[in-house]
């Protein structure tokens, strides 16, 4: 058999055996509708950016986006100069003590542009200590870190999930005095790339199972398979004190675009999986806020111009894994009018989303203004216990202007 034949046979065999779930045409319509909305608003951002809302770790600015009419009740202050060069799309994480900024790009791709060259990403990193209001360089990452990579903190240790062509590579970073990166061995091949952490345990999907990496013990374990029916597709796991919650859509749903696939959730109580009542939302990017799972995507979906859904569905919402109760986001969180800084960052309590700050404890929503001199897009952002820290970014125009300035936004205390 010559090479031509071997190639044809290999492709036929390898690609033919890929067992694909049914594609989600409703989700494609939904994203397409969002893109239409955003284009009307003059905010052309790729779909992959749109869905970055409410994802922890790697956070992106999406330019000026519409917000509700709420008054600003917070203030910005510029932080000391970070020991990092100007860049966009750095990764950022709050460890509980410091904000780490890692990697980023010197040549970010403008929105809606086709960028042929590959920016390998930067490795250098720095830590900001809000207690002392100081920056310090830390050990550079072992790999270039950029868009698509993910950071999270587990038990004071940072976990980096780095995407690479042949699968993901996982690393831990231990803060000073150790100040060192270590590659995590034996990463399951099928592991998903949006892990979630609680305490020292990092949870990730791996096919129908959930795998757990304990950063203190340095070992992997696997939870029993979730056998609830119908099987969930597009699975994600969110770590909660009530057990890991796997969310996804019904893999048997026809996805015909006429009725949407609302998100379903299974919670593992330590022994068995239990299916919660169906949510009323379509998005699936959750963050545990201490009492509920929060997906702070304020967009809504109507099913498009052809065969619209029977009613408008929200993308985001709130889910209590203890009771299974799902509730919508407050109406004040919307994409209807006004403008705010499109820095997206989920936090423990606050969420920066679509130019607004949503307080998931009180339900209040305020506009997030863009500080003078801040970059329009590609800023890294993360919430500390009480402030939103933003670093770098790019402003695209005739030339691309990169920033290495950093700010902190603090919500004003409530008026008595």
């Amino acid at each position, binding site marked *: 058999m010559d*090479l031509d034949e*071997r*190639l*044809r046979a*290999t*492709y*036929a065999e*390898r*690609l033919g*055996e*890929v*067992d*694909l779930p049914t*594609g989600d*045409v409703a*989700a*494609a*319509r939904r*994203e*397409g509708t969002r*893109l239409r909305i955003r*284009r009307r608003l003059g905010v052309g951002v*790729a*779909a*992959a*950016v*749109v869905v*970055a809302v409410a*994802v922890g770790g*790697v956070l*992106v600015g999406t330019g000026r986006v519409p917000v509700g009419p709420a008054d600003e009740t917070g203030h910005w202050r510029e932080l000391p100069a970070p020991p990092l060069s100007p860049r966009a799309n750095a990764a950022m994480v709050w460890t509980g003590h410091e904000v780490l900024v890692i990697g980023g*790009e010197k040549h*970010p*791709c403008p929105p809606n542009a*086709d*960028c*042929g060259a*590959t920016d390998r990403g930067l490795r250098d990193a720095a830590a900001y200590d809000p207690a002392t209001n100081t920056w310090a360089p830390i050990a550079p990452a072992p790999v270039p870190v950029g*868009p*698509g990579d993910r950071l999270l903190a587990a038990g004071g240790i940072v976990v980096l999930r780095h*995407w690479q*062509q*042949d*699968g*993901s590579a996982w690393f831990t970073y231990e803060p000073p005095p150790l100040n060192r990166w270590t590659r995590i061995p034996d990463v399951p*091949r*099928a*592991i*998903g*790339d*949006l892990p979630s952490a609680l305490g020292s345990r990092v949870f990730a*999907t*791996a096919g129908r199972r959930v*795998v757990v990496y304990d950063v203190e013990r340095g070992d992997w374990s696997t939870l029993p398979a979730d056998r609830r029916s119908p099987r969930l*597709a*597009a699975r994600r796991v969110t770590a909660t004190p009530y057990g890991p919650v796997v969310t996804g859509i019904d893999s048997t749903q026809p996805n*015909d*675009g006429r009725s949407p696939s609302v998100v379903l959730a299974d919670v593992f109580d330590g022994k068995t999986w239990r299916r919660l009542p169906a949510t009323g939302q379509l998005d699936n*990017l959750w963050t545990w806020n201490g009492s509920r799972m929060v997906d702070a995507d304020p967009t809504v979906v109507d099913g498009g111009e*052809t065969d619209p859904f029977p009613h408008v569905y929200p993308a985001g919402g709130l889910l209590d894994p203890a009771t299974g109760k799902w509730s919508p986001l407050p109406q004040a969180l919307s994409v209807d009018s006004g403008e705010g800084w499109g820095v997206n960052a989920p936090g423990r309590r606050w969420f920066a989303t679509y130019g607004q700050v949503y307080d998931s404890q009180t339900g209040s929503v305020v506009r997030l203004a863009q500080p003078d001199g801040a970059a329009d897009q590609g800023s890294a952002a993360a919430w500390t216990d009480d402030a939103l820290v933003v670093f770098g970014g790019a402003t695209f125009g005739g030339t691309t202007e990169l920033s290495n300035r950093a700010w902190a936004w603090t919500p004003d205390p409530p008026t008595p």
Partner: protein
Amino acid sequence: MTVPEYDDVYAAWWPRLVRTAYAVSGDRGRAEDAVQTAFAKAYRSWRRISRLEAPEAYLRRMVVNEVLNDRRRARCRHEITSDAPPDRADAETADLAPAHDDDVWRAVSSLPPRQRAVLVLRYYEDLSEQQIADALGCRPGTVKSQASAALATLRTRLDHPTRAGEGL
């Protein structure tokens, strides 16, 4: 001309495009992401795309571009999060199993993404040189040189004695 419905095109082409994207990216989750993103963008302009002579060719070009530019565009994804090798019939046990070895597949997977794209479009999609050039947005001569380089690399890595792919 009959204008195809969006849902029909999605249903008909989603699996094949995912497989093609997977062959280029080597990552199933990112392949599904790329195809889903391409379809979302296509929905935005479906009235125009649906009137093209070959909407599927346009979609294929969108998908390939999504995959090739994925590293730069990716933020966080709305995807099926799996780096799994192709699923087996017993997906539950295969999910955590390592992929089995295959010399050709491994050698192809080691090629640069653009060369992988040329090969999968030629040997899986059965496209002509001109069609591959259209899909990649380059000239036929570039396709020829990319294919030649890819096959030369494969021959070296596989220690293959024959001169295959000269007709590409």
